[in-house]
């Protein structure tokens, strides 16, 4: 009995030791991703404020640090020192859990994003599936945040969030299915590898596989904006209608986490768009591929998100749903069918 137990422990140790590099790698990468997301979420706020200022012809933050670079840190300190007020009558558990539930999925999903061919925390073969599985938690968290606040504005916002996210998840998944069919894999690393070569090998430009590829990208991009509740689809926050939407009752870091999660989600969405359509870490000229290219593409997309936010007014709610159900879903279905047909036609020749 004792012998078998020690034998088991020894075996377990041997097992762990054989795996040793892998857990270390994982811990390092997860730490790295958390730092990356934290830093990005903070500094994307700076980018947003600076960008908004430039679009509106003002200097933006200038006072804290050079060009206001320490502003996000000052903001974070301010938010941390503020009291997290839990209003009377709210469901305190859900109210406190919601910000965490918003942040966690974004962090988790980034673990499978391949920043370069070696830089990825976990290279699993259903990475895409995992991202979308975690993506749906995000919606639930926002809804819980709005609902548990017991505030009329927050509840209206929660209802909006659910219908908006449900509506946009469908075309987004249809587009992703198209991409999975085109690349033949759900492993994000392999999807990037399938796009190796100069820029016309990127999925965005693979018009011989699917002539509507740019449209597909556009649908993905729109859905990404809607899923992250970004302008012009910021129905959930809608500050001129719903005060602050689901975040109305949050104060201090509770609000701060929601705010950071928004940027973390943008980061995730843009990373995914980069991987699926823009060839990930592949360089546009076919040589010197690496993480720099990934970040360049990622930040270009992030900039475009900021650019769009400071250009357009908010959509009307039924306009938003109409866009999804009447335009995006039919078109994405069509591209799905088209590319599968094209694949059937092309495959025999390619093989």
């Amino acid at each position, binding site marked *: 009995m004792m012998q078998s137990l020690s034998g088991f422990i020894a075996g377990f140790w041997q097992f762990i030791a054989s795996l040793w590099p892998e857990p270390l790698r994982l811990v390092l990468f997860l730490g790295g991703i958390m730092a990356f997301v934290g830093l990005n979420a903070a500094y994307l706020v700076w980018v947003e404020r600076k960008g908004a200022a*430039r*679009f509106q*012809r*003002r200097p933006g933050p200038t006072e804290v640090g050079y060009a206001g670079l320490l502003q996000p840190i000052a903001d974070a300190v301010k938010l941390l020192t503020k009291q997290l007020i839990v209003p009377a009558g709210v469901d305190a558990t859900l109210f406190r859990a919601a910000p965490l539930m918003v942040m966690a999925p974004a962090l988790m999903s980034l673990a499978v994003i391949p920043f370069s061919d070696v830089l990825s925390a976990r290279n699993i073969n259903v990475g895409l599936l995992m991202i979308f599985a975690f993506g749906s938690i995000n919606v639930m968290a926002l809804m819980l945040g709005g609902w548990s606040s017991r505030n009329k504005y927050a509840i209206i916002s929660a209802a909006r969030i659910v219908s908006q996210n449900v509506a946009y998840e469908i075309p987004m998944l249809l587009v992703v299915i198209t991409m999975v069919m085109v690349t033949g894999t759900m492993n994000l690393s392999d999807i990037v590898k399938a796009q190796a070569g100069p820029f016309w090998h990127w999925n965005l430009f693979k018009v011989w596989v699917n002539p509507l590829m740019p449209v597909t990208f556009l649908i993905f991009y729109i859905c990404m904006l809607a899923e992250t509740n970004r302008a012009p689809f910021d129905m959930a926050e809608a500050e001129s209608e719903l005060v602050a939407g689901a975040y109305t009752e949050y104060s201090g870091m509770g609000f701060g986490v929601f705010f950071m999660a928004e940027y973390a989600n943008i980061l995730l969405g843009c990373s995914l768009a980069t991987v699926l359509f823009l060839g990930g870490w592949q360089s546009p000229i076919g040589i010197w591929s690496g993480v720099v290219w990934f970040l360049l593409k990622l930040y270009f997309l992030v900039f475009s998100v900021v650019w769009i936010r400071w*250009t357009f007014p908010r959509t009307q709610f039924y306009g938003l749903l109409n866009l999804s159900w009447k*335009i995006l879903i039919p078109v994405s279905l069509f591209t799905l069918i088209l590319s599968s047909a094209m694949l059937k036609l092309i495959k025999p020749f390619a093989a």
Partner: protein
Amino acid sequence: MKSALKEIAVGFNSLITGMRITLGQFFKRSVTLQYPHESLKMSERFRGHIELVKDPATGKAICYACKLCERACPSDCIIVEGAKLDGAKKRSVTTYQLDFTKCSLCGSCVEACRDGAIRFSHDYNLASLSKEEFVMDLFKRLETEREEEERREGKPASAVPVAVKPEAAQPAAGQTKVEVK
């Protein structure tokens, strides 16, 4: 179907136009002024709070407390007192109290004045932590200014200096004035 496609195309085009316009603005110079570091010069006719005008000959206030301004004021924010000093032909002002908290800067007082004894100041950096500091005695202010000037020029002070606490309402003197446009 055709009209729907056209609508999508037109709509998409309008979005692109909008984005092009904002991007065009992105690279232009910013139009704002970083206020505490730089400030605007007020125009000639700027209506700040009022101040008494000095007679260049005597260095004292022109005002002789005729109280026209007091009567013209719609908000009752001016109290003027005057007295006939020994040996003077005219009355002269002894108190000119402006309650700036009530003043609506309408300028009726300046218009009512027949002798040009009051004018608008160009101060606009008026901020204070207490309401009382906006009840200013313009006469005392003028006298203090005059005495300081005389002291600077080395003349003996003509009158016993009145202890006046520094007006917090006055703007910082050394502020850079930047001409814009």
